[in-house]
């Protein structure tokens, strides 16, 4: 039914009921994306309501931004248009937890912390721990392809997401993937949804592979005198039979922020296994540290929680996600140091990251926009030579308009991405302008 003769607001009320819609100015301002204030904040109670809202939005040519906890609202480009913010926080049920299969099916607005509370009694986990993970929704984590230290062992959401129900831009509810841990039936649709920022559909239900928690996790910090020494240590671990659960780089400010022993650079490694293996692999780790000229110290169990708190950022802080090869971690660190010297505001970048996967995270606090933009450009030039990328994961709008927050995408691949986006959302309902290349 066309509602063009009535107000769209009234049609939204028909779909979700008045209590689930807000158009109070303060609520709208709180939901603004950059300087775009939505006309409505809608909080659906079910996947069916999400579908009905999107069908209406498509018909009326509205722009919709799905929202979870709101932790990643300044990822990507500023939105071209914004009419509806779709708040998913009421889609928060665990739908089906099958501990004996190590799988769980949840609604996308469930927070990772709430899921962990359901899994902990069975000593199972969804191993995904980006800073601030507990308060973030699983839909938001998947849509932004978030990842943390546990990535070293368990990979990213592309390795954990088995199935997904999403609502396409035209309101069609669609399922892809499987409920079981092994399936190659049809195209691997879940892969497309990871990191797509909701541009191919609004995530409604997610089925994950779970992992057992190891009997014990032991953590060591290896302090080193220089970036090349850290590189040497990383290479030794990668070329060994050690199987780190977390394998995280920390520069001096990051060590300080997490109350760890101070050093020019540190690498924190955890081993998760049975007691005996943790002890043995810890011994091997200490030996490799010595060979690289470093010093290994056993850390307390709460170290990773301290890191999580220390590296969770506040609104307005600049967060960069750098992707490089594990073999050029030292060069990347040196490029960061060189870039830091040019920062007029004297800000010190805090560097962490999963070295096993060449994933580096930089937090820049207190830099002005011009400084930050120059820093990003400098890093992009530095990693360009070794096929790396720098994405502005968070930061003020002015920074994300001064430069492309995503950075370049290879033209032929981008052409496919553009066709994909056009195929499924030709009217640009979902998050227009925010994804790579302004998609």
């Amino acid at each position, binding site marked *: 039914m066309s509602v063009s003769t009535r107000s769209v607001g009234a049609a939204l009320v028909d779909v979700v009921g008045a209590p689930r819609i807000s158009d109070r100015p303060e609520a709208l301002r709180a939901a603004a994306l950059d300087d775009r204030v939505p006309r409505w904040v809608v909080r659906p109670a079910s996947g069916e309501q999400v579908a009905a809202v999107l069908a209406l939005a498509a018909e009326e040519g509205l722009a919709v931004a799905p929202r979870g906890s709101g932790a990643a609202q300044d990822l990507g480009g500023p939105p071209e248009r914004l009419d509806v913010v779709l708040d998913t926080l009421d889609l928060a049920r665990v739908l089906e937890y*099958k501990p*004996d*299969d190590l*799988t769980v099916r949840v609604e996308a607005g469930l927070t990772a912390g709430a899921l962990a509370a359901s899994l902990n009694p069975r*000593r*199972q986990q969804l191993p995904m721990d980006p800073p601030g993970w507990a308060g973030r929704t699983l839909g938001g984590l998947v849509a932004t392809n978030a990842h943390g230290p546990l990535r070293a062992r368990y*990979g*990213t959401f*592309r*390795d954990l997401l088995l199935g997904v129900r999403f609502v396409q831009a*035209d309101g*069609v*509810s669609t*399922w892809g993937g*499987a*409920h*079981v*841990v*092994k399936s*190659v*039936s*049809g*195209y*691997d*649709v879940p*892969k*497309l949804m*990871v990191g*797509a920022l909701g541009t*191919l559909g609004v995530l409604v239900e997610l089925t994950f592979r779970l992992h057992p928690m190891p009997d014990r996790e032991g953590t060591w910090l290896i302090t080193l005198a220089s970036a090349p020494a850290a590189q040497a240590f990383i290479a030794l671990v*990668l*070329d060994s*039979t050690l*199987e780190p659960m977390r394998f995280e780089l920390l520069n001096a400010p990051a060590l300080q922020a997490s109350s760890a022993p101070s050093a020019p650079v540190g690498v924190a490694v955890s*081993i998760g*296994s049975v*007691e005996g*293996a943790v002890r043995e692999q810890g011994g091997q780790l200490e030996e490799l540290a010595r060979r690289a000229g470093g010093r290994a110290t056993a850390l307390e169990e709460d170290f990773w929680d301290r890191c999580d708190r220390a590296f969770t950022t506040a609104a307005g802080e600049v967060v960069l996600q750098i*992707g490089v*090869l*594990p*073999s050029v971690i030292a060069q990347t660190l040196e490029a960061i140091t060189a870039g830091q010297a040019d920062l007029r505001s004297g800000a010190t970048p805090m560097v962490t990251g999963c070295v096993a996967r*060449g*994933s580096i995270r930089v937090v820049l606090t207190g830099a002005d926009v011009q400084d930050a933009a120059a820093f990003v450009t400098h890093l992009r030039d530095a990693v360009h030579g*070794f096929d790396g*990328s720098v*994405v502005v994961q968070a930061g003020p709008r002015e920074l994300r308009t001064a430069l492309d927050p*995503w950075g370049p*995408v*290879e033209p*032929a*691949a*981008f052409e*496919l*991405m553009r066709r*994909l986006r056009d*195929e*499924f959302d030709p009217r640009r309902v979902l998050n227009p302008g925010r994804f*790579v*290349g302004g998609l």
Partner: protein
Amino acid sequence: MSLSAAFVEGLRDILGPEGLVVSLEGRLVYECDMHTYYKGMPDVVALPDRTEQVVEVVRRCREHGVPIVPRGAGTGLIGGAMAPRGGVMVGLNRMNAVLEIDLPNRCATVQPGLINLWLTQAVAERGYFFAPDPSSQMVSSIGGNVATNAGGAHCLKYGITTNHVLGLEIVTGAGELVRLGGKVADRPGYDLTGAAVGSEGTFGLVTAVIVRLLHAPEAVKTVLASFASLVDASHAVSDIIAAGIIPAALEMLDAVIIRAINAGVAPVYPAEAAAVLLIELDGPRAEVDRQGQRCAGLCRERGALEVRVARDEAERTLLWKGRKEAAGAVGRVTSSYLLQDAVVPRSKLPDIMQEMQAIAARHGVLIANVFHAGDGNLHPLICYDERKPEEVERASLANEELLRACIALGGSITGEHGIGVDKAKNLPLQFAEADLNFMYRLRRVFDPHGIMNPDKLLPSHPACGEGFRPLRPSLPAGAWI
């Protein structure tokens, strides 16, 4: 049908005389893959030896609306590498080089025709391996593994092919050469690599693959446990997973298979057992030892007849030799069989084993089982004598019933073999119309002219929903049949 002489000459100009097979005798071997029920001979077979040739062939076929069927080693089990409409088959076997091995970054770049096992052999001395290990790994190509998203015994711990592919170079159905992903793991944009792995050649032809390499574990331990019933063994599998142990591999063999292997390969397994579990643990030595003991304990609690640990590498190799040669040994039991690849949630193994026995009894067929129990991926072999049409019919009915039983338990119609032509008709069991429409449209993004591996992976004549705008055929209906 026949391709015009000018078209074939054009292909010869691109590929040279060695790169094109046109004779009937030459093409005969390309009429099917290992699923020999489905036959369709291509009109010509192109054997490019470099990427530029692949691009040229695809562009020429696109211009003339000629279908393309990609082929690796031809070891697929789903009729994926046969040419139902004729056209051009592109065999990628000649493109079999290792382009780069980068151990510091634990990856390698290879051409699609490289045999899976050759890659591991190239890096084994330095302590590395390529994890996907389909039973065909000594003959199947990595390009084929990518196309089908192949699994294998050890994917229980290590994941299937897609978890080990970092990037692809593909020539899409539109004739564009595109690099997806790359050695660096994080790239902005959609994960098109992830979407392309397992697309069974319907997006395009893969011309290079960047794969992850893993470091070999410190220790490996293989445990054999035998049981008086399949159901007992299935309970043991569920217990091991529920105990939080993810072995590297957890395989089950039933009495029919045990007897066939003992007679045909070597006396490997306890002759009196109704089921054998092969449990392989790898990782840090202390972990392997501890988990080996726990697995053995869990098997005993489920009434195992015998539990033993392979004492040395020779015994371990023998235990695996039996498993890997199982499909061949079945030839002693039956002349023909239907091979199923369905999946159930792993906690439902006892249920499906009981159901399977009931189905076998109901249709009077022999069903042999050798499968990846740890992830619930069944491979029942439904035996029949092809000279008896009535037996073929019963086997076929049992096969369909089994597939539906797996779906009813919340499973999947394929765990690792893929869809091909064989299961395209079954896809609606698992996906609704809207889900299939999404897949049709996704396919069209990569292959706008509909020339890549037609009739594979998706049902050919869908009930068109609102979302799917059907393609206009580029040639008169029936032109290729």
